[in-house]
């Protein structure tokens, strides 16, 4: 593939830096990062996973979030590029999914079935600690990352790790494990909110998520706050929950 445009990359870093200076919602930050990384890589879906206290990789954010992709992230608790990148601390790049059935018998066929041809995974690291992985899917054969691309995507993955520490660490002196637990739990709240809206509106969980995000955008509210309100005080947002 062509190397990422320097101008676009510069704009992305400025946008990210701008987000990091203020108080921010970690999941939204990770979504922004996944979305911008996807844009730089010609709209390949990008997902971010963090390891919980048991070493399980939990889905946190993606450029395009749906049931199909969530399953591909989940399966990587057994095997797959994210697990490899997380365990070794080194990126997995340009893995041809059609040749990968031996390496990942569970993951590769599912990814092919979902329409992907190649996959990449980058470790999320904080100093010596490995905390998760960034997953990049490509649906076309030409989706190869060259050496420069790999460095750029790894740099974006490193920014995700910094964001995790940044969220409240500076103001409150919090520790990484406190941040991680908080982030993992806030992701659960989003899934609970998807379910609540899906049931109230009689739609699929994917449609429910689209409704929640649209509501956040049009009311200039943070995803985490809205998800919490949905799960604890459903009646207070009739716009989202009226059948």
């Amino acid at each position, binding site marked *: 593939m062509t190397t990422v445009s320097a101008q676009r990359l510069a704009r992305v870093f400025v946008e990210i830096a701008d987000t990091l200076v203020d108080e921010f919602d970690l999941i939204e930050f990770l979504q922004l990062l996944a979305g911008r990384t996807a844009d730089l890589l010609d709209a390949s879906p990008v997902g971010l996973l963090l390891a919980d206290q048991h070493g399980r990789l939990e889905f946190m954010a993606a450029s395009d979030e749906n049931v199909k992709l969530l399953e591909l992230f*989940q399966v990587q608790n057994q095997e797959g590029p994210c697990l490899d990148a997380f365990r070794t601390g080194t990126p997995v790049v340009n893995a041809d999914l059609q040749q990968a059935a031996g390496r990942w018998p569970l993951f590769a066929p599912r990814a092919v079935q979902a329409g992907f041809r190649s996959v990449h995974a980058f470790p999320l690291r904080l100093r010596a600690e490995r905390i998760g992985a960034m997953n990049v899917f490509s649906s076309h054969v030409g989706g190869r990352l060259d050496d420069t691309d790999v460095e750029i995507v790894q740099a974006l993955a490193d920014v995700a790790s910094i964001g995790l520490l940044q969220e409240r660490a500076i103001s409150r002196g919090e520790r990484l494990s*406190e941040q991680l637990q908080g982030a993992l739990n806030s992701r659960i*709240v989003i899934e609970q909110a998807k379910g609540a809206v899906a049931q109230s509106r009689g739609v699929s969980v994917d449609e429910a998520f689209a409704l929640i995000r649209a509501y956040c955008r049009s009311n200039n509210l943070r995803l985490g706050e809205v998800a919490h309100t949905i799960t604890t005080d459903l009646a207070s947002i009739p716009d989202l929950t009226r059948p």
Partner: protein
Amino acid sequence: MVGETVADRYAQVEALIGRELASDDDEHGVAAGMRRLCGAAGRALSASGAGLTVMADGGLRGVTAASDAATERLEELQLTLGEGPCIDAYGSMRPVLIPDLGDGAMARWPVYAPAVHAEGVRAVFAFPLQIGAARLGVMDVFRTEAGMLSPDELTLALTFAEVAVSTLLDGHDNTRVGVADDWLDDPLGSRAELFQAQGMVMVQLRVSLAEAMVRMRAHAYVHDLRLYDVAADVVARRLSFDTPQP
């Protein structure tokens, strides 16, 4: 040493709790299970004690359990004073780890920190008991020596907190890993789907999120199903809790 897999760690915690004897023959139910859990957690984490506060409706309803009487007083002190790591862990929905109750803690909790320091406490670790937005309470671990929990101890403490959540949800003192927890090491079971189903059941039954999980676990138990399968059926709309169950 902590176990390799999630199920190993749960089994380890269950075994530790099982070794704690009931202090009173009449003692039974959730309260007794919680006290034993606190006793086991205190011992396993080289702590002077562990305590647990169950909260309701966002209010600090002080239902506490603790490994011993002195720890129970420390636990109640936070509720009386309205400040402390436990209160903050509940509010921020994340652990609050204070390896040294020194200057920083004194400024953060000007009444609480000196009070527990006078009781000989030098480190406090507070873990929220929660599943997403469903908040049940907080577990506190107290130590008389300053110092951070090791990574293994942290994992163990978080596992104790998870077992406490299961015990509170299931409402009995049988803290063994039940049928509802057999999904722990299942790589294909979707955790996202479990929480989505919880949100759906909350709306179906017009109950709290915590109650929705209670109902799903009970359904899995009664029908001898995996919790993941119950969740998948709810999300696929093959199973609804607002229509009579077969």
